[in-house]
């Protein structure tokens, strides 16, 4: 069977689901962050394959932007985690429930 768009999209979907599972189920903030990166990459993969199979380069431009934004996001997010760790001595989501009164 020839590899088509569907195959790529299925990989992207699996990657996205794994990332989602990680975000919802893991408790370590850093791992949650990595799972987020997985989800972003899943989106990138879908965009690149759309770009290839639709004969348009714009999708790749978007991926380029996403990678840049992701880099910035990682930098800020990690800085936040560091600041949080300094204050709470923990990187576990269960310890960060100050939103609840």
């Amino acid at each position: 069977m020839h590899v088509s768009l569907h195959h790529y999209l299925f990989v992207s979907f699996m990657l996205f689901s794994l990332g989602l599972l990680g975000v919802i189920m893991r408790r370590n903030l850093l791992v949650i962050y990595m799972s987020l990166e997985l989800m972003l990459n899943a989106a990138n993969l879908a965009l690149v394959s759309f770009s290839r199979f639709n004969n348009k380069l714009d999708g790749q431009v978007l991926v380029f932007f996403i990678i840049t934004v992701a880099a910035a996001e990682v930098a800020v997010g990690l800085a936040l985690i560091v600041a949080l760790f300094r204050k709470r001595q923990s990187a576990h989501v269960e310890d960060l429930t100050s939103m609840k009164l």
Partner: protein
Amino acid sequence: MEAINNLISGGVVQDIMFYVFAALTLLCAILVVANPFSRSPVTSAMFLVLTIISMSGLFLLLHAFFLAAVQILVYAGAVMVLFLFVIMLLDLKEEQRRKIKFFGLAAGLVSVSIVAGIFIKSLASIKLTAEPALEGETYVLGKLLFTQYTLPFEIISILLLVAMVGVILLSKKKLE
């Protein structure tokens, strides 16, 4: 050279390579999220690097050569170094195994099934007629980036600057 090119563009080899890279990507991703052997964030980080590298293989198969390079440079290089650096900085102890909460499991499964539902629904509506023809040449991509997408490009660079400033501010020990 001619032979290799033919090999790559030829159908069977390419298909095989897709399956290999796809399997590698997914396997490493599973190990990032749920590693049965280690709970250390460092392992997760290392497997994330592997996931990203195998993904860039998929990008190559999709003829997105520039992006494949960027993926390795930015993600596997810069971003992952940052992750490891932070892990080292925080001096995290090995996370002990905890019982998986029923609520967490249920929530995860519900979410995934929802995403799956949407996925199937949208796949059904995709109609592809054209054969894949696009060549992701760096020259063309660069031209597009600096003509049609100049404004977003500039905005993105400002975003990076803002992120930089923000990170410095956040990482300072005390704000005075």
